[in-house]
């Protein structure tokens, strides 16, 4: 829990007494680490609690603790021996996340997840009747196989289709974890060929073999930052601007866009960063007459030339 805001401190204090009560003789440093506060902050919290208690506020009424070196034991709780009930937001956040886990194709421990979900729902009562349903698509068998390989910490040889370059390559990767983002599964792994961490879309892994050799993650292998989504445009990627008719407006929901000018016009002006212009050419050709290229001129020319070339191939 964050230590910053005022309300958080009150919540933390009301939680602290039952927390310590459940763990007599816990080391202050361990408690601080588990509660995600500094040791100093925790000591200040304990000092504050020490002067709180039942009306009368005499020695027998105040919350009391015994210190033994670095260890602390609550010896009198003044009636706050249980944490506060879950708020609707807390129950919702936990229940929805557990439902999401339980729905995951290919996940292990499904039984434990479902038991946990049932218990949290029971404890939260009415408020846990979260009006939220989750269904995640995916090939459960394939995901389970890949997950198992990840868990065994073996290197994998994969046949992978790279859509941006329209090519299928073989590579050896050292798996890190399987992620599901926006309903799509990804294998996060160190790619020995690229010498970098990469996210491989599981539906584009056309084949894989688990190798005997152990996965060897180099020190610089870090989890990808996916807070802003899987695809992160980099400033060195070219910006493509398209004029987009009604029938192709869906691309603004499908691809991350730099800008969309959509006010009171039939033809939207859409700019997006692309990994390379060959991919952009494929995109534009595939969208047909609903889309025309505004810039760069190089792309407009490439689209026109390729279209003529293809028509010529059909005329031959």
């Amino acid at each position, binding site marked *: *829990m964050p230590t910053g805001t005022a*309300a958080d401190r*009150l919540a*933390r204090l009301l*939680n602290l007494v*039952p927390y310590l009560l459940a763990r007599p003789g816990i080391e202050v440093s361990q408690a601080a680490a588990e*509660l995600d506060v500094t040791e100093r902050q925790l000591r200040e919290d304990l000092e*504050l609690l020490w002067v*709180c208690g039942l*009306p009368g*506020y005499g020695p027998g009424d105040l919350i009391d603790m015994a210190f033994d070196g670095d260890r602390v034991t609550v010896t009198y709780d003044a009636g*706050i021996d249980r*944490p506060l*009930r*879950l*708020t609707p*937001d807390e129950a*919702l956040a*936990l229940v*929805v996340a*557990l439902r999401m886990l339980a729905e995951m194709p290919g996940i*292990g*421990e499904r039984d434990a*997840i479902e038991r*946990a979900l049932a*218990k*949290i729902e029971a404890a939260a009562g009415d408020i846990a009747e*979260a009006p939220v*349903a989750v*269904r*995640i*698509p995916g090939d459960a068998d394939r*995901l389970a196989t890949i997950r198992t390989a990840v*868990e065994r910490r073996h290197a994998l040889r994969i046949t992978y289709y790279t859509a941006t370059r*329209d*090519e*299928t390559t073989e590579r050896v990767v050292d798996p890190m*974890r399987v992620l*599901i*983002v*926006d309903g799509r599964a990804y294998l996060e792994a160190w790619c020995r060929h690229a010498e970098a961490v990469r996210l491989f879309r599981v539906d584009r892994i056309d084949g894989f073999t688990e190798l005997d050799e152990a996965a060897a993650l180099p020190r610089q292998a870090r989890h990808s930052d*996916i807070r802003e*989504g899987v695809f992160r445009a980099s400033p060195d990627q070219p910006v493509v601007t398209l004029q987009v008719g009604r*029938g192709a*407006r869906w691309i603004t*929901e499908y691809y991350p866009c730099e800008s969309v000018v959509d006010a009171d016009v039939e033809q939207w002006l859409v700019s997006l960063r692309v990994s390379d212009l060959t991919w952009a*050419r494929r995109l534009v*050709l*595939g*969208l*047909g*007459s609903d*889309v*025309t290229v*505004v810039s760069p001129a190089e792309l407009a020319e490439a*689209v026109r030339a*390729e*279209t*003529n070339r293809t028509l010529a191939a*059909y005329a031959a």
Partner: protein
Amino acid sequence: MSRVRTERLVNLVICLLSTRRYLTAAQIAATVPGYEHNPHDAKDHEAFQRKFERDKAELRELGVPLETGTSSAFDAEPGYRITRRDYALPDIPLEPDEAAAVGIAARLWRHAGLAEAASSGLAKLRAAGVEVDPQATLGVEPVLVVDRAFEPLTAASRLRQVVTFDYRVPEHDQSTSRRLQPWGVVCWRGRWYVVGYDLDRAAERCFRLSRIVSKVTTVGPPGAYRPPPRLDLISYVARWSGSAPPEHTQKATLLIKPGRAAGIRRWAESVTPASGGDQVVITYSDAHSVARWLVGYGSDVVVQDPPEVREAVICRLREIIAAQDRSDATVGAG
């Protein structure tokens, strides 16, 4: 919050938990340290009332069930108390593997508000004695991302409260204002939807959360309607977002340049070397949709058969040239 105020609030909670009788504001002021004032001094008394109102709001905000009522018919003024049954988290006997699952679940949110709610919820479970291993993983980690409208819509669905919002579908030029009795929120194929009864259209409707372009505002009191019994939210969205992709019952033969169009080859039924490249057989369901896909690969791919796909591809190519000409003419004229 100052230390003094925190201390006062902790004492207020303890005091109200320990009483069976409802305590009036005056009784609380006489008991709990920090509320000392002169009730006969109008200004002083007003300051106390303001302070007490703020404190009550703070506790309710935190989820402390502050109850108001009178202990006997003779009490003129309502008082306050907190019953243990409403305050305390019931016992949750989680097995270690269940606790690990909850710990993992709490980390999934990539959304500030819900991530905080999940971790403060987890903190309460820990305070109830549950040990959570922060290192546990399941090998597969879903990342939970929700749209801004998620929180207000789940809250309104739970409370059965009508909402309004502006909704915009890309194919339409204007957003429209909608009034909805929300029944629930669904995650389907990686996108979030709300299902409910649209009061203006007088029909059941699904809305994609990412297309809600305004704030979601509640209208009227909670408990205003009743969702249908035995509601299956998923099936509504599944029906609305269209059925599974149609079956591929037709075959087309393509000539693909050597080593090109890997994106098509991976779906091929067969690949046979031929003069000028590879003869590749694919399956499809609709000539126009398969043509759209094939045109993307330009001159690397030429459809040999059947004529309906060949014609559809040529037609699209001509349209592309025509569209580009039109657009160039407009730009030239401007």
